[in-house]
């Protein structure tokens, strides 16, 4: 290279020479003596041309990315695992800080600020779900479900889990991997419970399947289809009575309105963190949380990193360090815990900022607004000929639209031509007998947006 590279301080020839001289060797190649000759790659790397100049690189990225057309340019009603929520500007400012963007683990004293922000993430999640023990976030909601189910299996020594037959296929696919294939000795069987016409778990089917082989019941409210479970406490009680864990998946943005899982007897709560101040990023914004009572039998099963508040040798001062990293020998454990690793800890800082700025009233307000907008949209769409929404189902944020004759794929294509992304096409999924889409309406949608969607649907299906 002729120029020194802006990201490599020692690419200056004189500096290299200084270090080589200190070592008393003539060439850098001599330092690779450990690698046998026949391991070395002899060919030329055919890689695209180096773009060391930032202006050239920026132009290349801009050109390539101009081929996207996202939810800012279009009116989008896509949800189903990544949701269009408003991200307050301060969240971007906070996660953009180079200090914690570049941090690795460091130490509780030198990286104190980040550890405190982590603790504020767990503390505020704990306040939302009404539970005392919260781990640092995992990769996604689906991964949180997977870990929670494995926790339950270790705790109960049982190898079957009950889930709704209507479950987000993305999350279900993740869960399947966590449960291992049938051929494996430690396979966990996923057993589905029927979803009734009201969009809720069928109690009779659940009771029939809840026996002493069940490690956990996993239930979501709102469900994949957006349905609010009227009596989640009843479901949890059934699970607990069978000696199973009651795992509940919740949308944290619903918790200003809907009862907290900890208040109705859930034993483990999981959910997504992306709605709390993180952009969708083509799915790269997802994250998941796990919470439970602060009892040893739960706490000792967490695979997450766990941060605890601590006193320090200073006066009136808090510090924040890892707890349960040394999991001491507790009880009779037949299996190791899952792995811990890099997760989505930077997003936890956006989450903490978001929850702090929202406060209790912010959560109540956004919950009301989302329900009002979603229900208004549902009513208006149901009024269209050939389209229907089951208005008897209490829905939060998402709801199913069924089409009498129109094909959802064709409808979505036509909508896209009008600058609108329709809901996720769920035709053919379990519990969806007809052509149907899952529509998502949030606080980011104005009344005008709903007008525009309704008008377009009417025109397309006419």
């Amino acid at each position, binding site marked *: 290279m002729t120029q020194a590279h802006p990201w490599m301080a020692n690419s200056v020839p004189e500096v290299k020479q200084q270090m080589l001289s200190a070592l008393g060797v003539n060439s850098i190649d001599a330092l690779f003596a450990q690698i046998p000759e026949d391991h070395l790659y002899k060919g030329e790397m055919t890689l695209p041309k180096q773009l060391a100049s930032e202006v050239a690189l920026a132009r290349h990225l801009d050109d390539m990315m101009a081929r996207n057309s996202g939810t800012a340019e279009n009116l989008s009603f896509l949800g189903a695992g990544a949701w269009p929520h408003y991200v307050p500007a301060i969240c971007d400012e906070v996660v953009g800080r180079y200090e914690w963007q570049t941090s*690795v*683990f460091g*130490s*509780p004293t030198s990286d104190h600020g980040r550890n405190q922000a982590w603790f504020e993430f767990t503390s505020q999640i704990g306040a939302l779900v009404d539970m005392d023990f919260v781990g640092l976030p995992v990769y996604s909601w689906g991964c949180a479900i997977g870990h929670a189910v494995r926790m339950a299996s270790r705790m109960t020594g049982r190898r079957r889990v009950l889930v709704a037959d209507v479950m987000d296929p993305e999350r279900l696919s993740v869960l399947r991997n966590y449960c291992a294939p049938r051929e494996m000795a*430690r396979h966990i069987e996923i057993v589905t419970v029927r979803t009734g016409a009201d969009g809720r778990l069928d109690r009779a089917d659940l009771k029939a399947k809840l026996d002493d082989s069940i490690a956990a019941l996993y239930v979501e409210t709102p469900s994949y289809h957006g349905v609010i479970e009227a009596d989640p406490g009843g479901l949890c009680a059934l699970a607990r009575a069978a000696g199973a864990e009651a795992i509940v998946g919740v949308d944290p943005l619903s918790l200003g309105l809907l009862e907290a899982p900890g208040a109705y007897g859930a034993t483990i709560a999981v959910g997504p963190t992306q709605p709390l101040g993180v952009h969708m990023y083509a799915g790269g914004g997802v994250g998941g949380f796990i919470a439970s009572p602060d009892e040893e039998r739960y706490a000792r099963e967490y695979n997450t*990193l766990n941060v605890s508040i601590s006193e320090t040798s200073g006066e009136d001062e808090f510090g924040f*360090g*890892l707890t349960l*990293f*040394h*999991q*001491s*020998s*507790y009880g*009779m*454990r*037949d*299996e*190791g*815990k899952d*792995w*811990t*690793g*890099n997760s989505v800890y930077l997003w936890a800082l956006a989450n903490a900022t978001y929850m702090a700025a929202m406060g209790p009233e912010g959560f109540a307000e956004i919950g009301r607004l989302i329900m009002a907008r979603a229900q208004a949209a549902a009513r208006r769409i149901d009024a269209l000929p050939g389209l229907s929404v089951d208005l008897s189902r209490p829905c939060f944020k998402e709801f199913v639209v069924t089409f009498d004759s129109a094909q959802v794929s064709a409808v979505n294509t036509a909508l896209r031509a009008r600058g609108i992304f329709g809901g996720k096409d769920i035709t053919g999924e379990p519990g969806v007998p007809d052509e149907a889409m899952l529509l998502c309406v949030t606080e980011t949608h104005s009344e005008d947006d709903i007008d525009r969607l309704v008008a377009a649907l009417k025109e397309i299906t006419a």
Partner: protein
Amino acid sequence: MPEDDLKRPRRLGLLVNPVAGLGGPMGEKGSDAPDIAARAEAAGRAGQAGARAARALAAFRRASEAPILAGPLPPETRAALDGEVETLDLGPTAQGRAETLAAVAAMAERVDLILFAGGDGTARDVAEANRAGLPVIGIPAGVKMHSGVFARSPERAGRIAAEFLAARTPRTDLVEILDIDEEARRAGQLSARIYSVARTPATRGERQNPKAGGGDMLADLDAALAGYVAGMVEETLYILGPGTTMAALKARIGGGTLLGVDLAEGPRITARDLSEDDLLERIPPGRPVRVVLTVVGGQGFVLGRGNQQISARVLERAGRPPIDVVCSAEKLAGLTPPELTIDTGDPALDAQLSGYWPITTGPGRKQVVRVVA
């Protein structure tokens, strides 16, 4: 430590066996012979225990101001302490081994940790007199140091002691006290046995720097035992060796001995504390047998130290059965050199058994270690 003792500052008990280590340079396999001190003096040799204790105390004092209650100290140790030490009055009669026993007994309820300088013989005496179950840490100063109480260096022993006394919630591990069996040695047979167990400060490293981790090694071991028990087969006869790890395994299947060799038929203990002859008697021809062992002591023996009941003859009678070894990954990491040793008393059998053994370290986890004779 008892709640009501929290009022007094934590105190260190200190003990130096002045003759420890004397036998080594004289070609002895220990310093346990009653006349060892006199013979050493005649040979112009001075004991190293006092000096090694002084090194440990220097390291201790750098980190701790805890008061010390000591048994009789050699001058070089006393010098390192600058006189700031309370000495036990044991009366004129206590000397040698009796002195150690008396000192440890007198420390009960008065100290929170015993730091002693010596070897396996001293460790054994300390353990014997330590009815109060005080935690113990050894300054390596003897000829034989198979026991798990010894720190890697005198300085490390001092540091561990200081950290233990300063910790808000001091933690201990259970380790074995081993010694060469003197009677067997005199009969010309090198042989060790586990005499007792002691609590010693847990020294797992500070872990505020966690990158991805596979979990906790002790919990892993516990789970490994559960997994082993789950896999025990009804028709198989299991010869179960001694040690704390094995005792934990035995506790899961009816309870066995800590220091002895027991027998199980499937997941059930059927006989306890068996001698070589007992074992030979109880192995019916043709019955599938497995031997289950752990790594004994600090020097990486799996066979031939502390479990010599499982002799070459027993192994032959059992048709050279598969040997399963369970041991924590941490203990394996501490092996220098990184290998395990066997000594069945039959060199030909040892040679045959040598090689790479998969050692169970956790649930569904094995680590391969080279086993040498």
